[in-house]
């Protein structure tokens, strides 16, 4: 066992022991924090998938992705305004609005992301590697600007249309919302897995990520495949934005910046380019952030999350799952 491996295991073991101690001493609090981390992590997972898919296929850190996620929440709250929804209880209108708006937002975000790819990234496919990175940053500012222009600098209210049902089991509070978030995220990730592994387009995406030139020789339309990757990544980000809005009922235009960085960390955590890794990474980062918030203090969470990021890269350069290394 090499020294980095040893350091990695020691760190992991220490963290597990400390958490286990908390679990034994204050079990209800621990479970409560765990549930919160899981819901937050589900959202990070959805966003992280977009980062990892785009990185896997064109090796671009898509800085605009976090803003696509936020824009999803903005668009969702905008469209929901057209419905006669009730925020005090769960009505039939709420259900219909939810069933209509949720997929609509996903599709709109998909369309927007494809347009972004077409305008800002595709023309630079053979340019120096940093050029698309700069346009990604530019698109990030652009999207933030659009949200700022649309709704102003203040936080924006997102209609609270989910049932407020909740129950307490052994002192632990379960809300309908918590379950909603985790279940919807799980369904979406499962659908993605089926898509990637079973469909022709999914296989084309995997092939392109492995070796773009070879994929092209095999008759795969590279531009279409990359556009599809952006589309699917944005579907998930749009869903993430909707879920965020439904859960927290508040968004602001710079939300995508910080949560985007954290979601990106999650993608790296799972081994960037690795799709199941991003889902697991999202959950793990969500849990770490939640535990850090309540056991260390929220002002340290950023240090903890990014400190772990650096640690993982130093000790486990291929990510936690370490399955697929994107070779140059």
């Amino acid at each position, binding site marked *: 066992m090499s020294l980095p491996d040893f350091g990695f295991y020691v760190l992991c073991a220490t963290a597990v022991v400390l958490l286990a101690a908390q679990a034994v001493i204050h079990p209800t609090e621990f479970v409560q924090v765990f549930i919160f981390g899981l819901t937050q992590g589900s959202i990070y997972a959805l966003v992280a998938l977009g980062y990892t898919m785009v990185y896997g296929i064109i090796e671009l850190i898509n800085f605009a992705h976090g803003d696509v996620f936020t824009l999803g929440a903005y668009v969702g709250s905008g469209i929901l305004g057209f419905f006669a929804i009730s925020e005090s209880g769960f009505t039939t209108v709420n259900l219909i609005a939810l069933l209509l708006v949720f997929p609509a937002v996903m599709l709109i975000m998909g369309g927007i992301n494809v347009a972004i790819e077409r305008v800002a990234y595709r023309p630079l496919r053979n340019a*120096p590697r*940093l050029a698309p990175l700069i*346009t990604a940053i530019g698109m990030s500012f652009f999207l933030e600007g659009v949200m700022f222009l649309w709704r102003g600098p203040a936080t924006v209210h997102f209609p609270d249309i989910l049932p407020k049902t909740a129950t307490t089991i052994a002192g632990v509070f379960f809300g309908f919302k918590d379950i909603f978030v985790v279940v919807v995220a799980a369904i979406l990730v499962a659908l993605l897995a089926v898509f990637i592994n079973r469909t022709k387009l999914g296989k084309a995406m995997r092939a392109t990520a492995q070796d773009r030139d070879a994929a092209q020789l095999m008759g795969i339309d590279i531009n279409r495949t990359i556009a599809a990757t952006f589309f699917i990544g944005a579907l998930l980000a749009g869903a993430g934005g909707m879920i965020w809005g439904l859960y927290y009922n508040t968004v602001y235009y710079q939300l995508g910046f910080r949560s985007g960085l954290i979601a990106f960390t999650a993608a790296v955590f799972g081994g960037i380019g690795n799709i199941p890794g991003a889902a697991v990474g999202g959950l793990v980062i969500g849990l770490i952030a939640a535990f850090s918030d309540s056991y260390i203090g929220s002002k340290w969470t950023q240090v903890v999350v*990014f400190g772990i990021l650096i640690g993982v*890269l130093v000790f486990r350069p291929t990510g936690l799952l370490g399955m697929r290394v994107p070779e140059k």
Partner: protein
Amino acid sequence: MSAPRRAAASRSFLSRLSLRERIRDRDQAVYGILIIAAIVFPLATIYATDGTALVSQATRAGYFVLLAIGLNVVVGFAGLLDLGYAAFFAIGAYTYALLASPQLASSPAHHAVHLPFWLMLFVAMFVAAGAGAILGFPTLRLRGDYLAIVTLGFGEIVPQLFYNFDQWTGGINAVGIIDQPVLPAWIQGPWSGDGPIQVVRNFNFGGDPVAFYVLICILIAAAVILVSNLYRSRLGRAWMAIREDEVAAAAMGINTVTTKLLAFGIGASFSGFAGAYYAADVSLVSPDNFLFIVSITVLVMVVLGGMGNISGVIIGALVLYYVVFSLLPSLPGAVESLANSIGLGSLNVRTTEWPGLGGETQRLTFIIYGAILVAMMLLRPQGLLPSRIREQELKHAAVQEEEAAVEMEHAT
């Protein structure tokens, strides 16, 4: 037979060297213009505006020029993507701020420290370089993009640490009343008040923006000379070799880890240096001055200017500084006065529904900035003034012409 041939060969070598010189001439022209501009700018603006506000602005632009020159060593020369460069800027600034202000008196140390600026300039440089080495040592083995992510994480952690250790740094309250540089003698004139041109003894920089401006120009000139020297040296070639092909570079006997570490450390030292100077000039240092946006802005300056090319990077820094810190903030006011002058002043009135034309423009600035970045990259993916290296496609034709000329010479 062989003697004239040899002579022709060496002549052809020389003639191609002169081609190389000619390409370098562009850099010299840029430097010439920059030097003239640096001298004319303060004179002209002080004369025209009867104030030194614009000179202070130019000094602020100067930090970004220094930062861009430093980041260019890391990104442009060695090809290492650093997304947390502002962290070293912060480290430099806090190193000076804490050791040359009353701040530590209210910390657990209970003693204010006031070390001289000129010493601290170098201390800050070494502290930042040390931080770069500590971060770089375990991480420089990583592939390019992982390094970018590590630096991004580092850039997020450092300001947060300065924020969190508020007992020492004052946290969000910032460190203020930072000492100003002192020189034994300095020339003052009408630009620094009403007085005539005179030599001032024990001159304190405080309140004289021109002095800060002159100093930053000197620092930039020194930085350009030092970095250009490195570029055309054993180390500079080793950096480029690593950027081009790390395996081949190692096979040539280059220790890739220490060479990359040097790029990282030298880049960080520039940032630390600029940070200390920034702290002295602004006299107020808060964690908010060193967020991700600063790292990104400097990176955009480097890429926009033309990676690897020092003069291009300076131009990139100046252009982007102007756009971000002068043009965009002035837009709302400009639009308002335009509306007033063409009789649409009513649009400027703010209501609860309408933030006024100026307010609306201000909301637009994000969009404009984003669009400018995208458009600039689409139009000039190689940057405004690409380095000779990246421009070679164009130059190639010229070289071939020379070649043909040499062949002709051989034939006759």
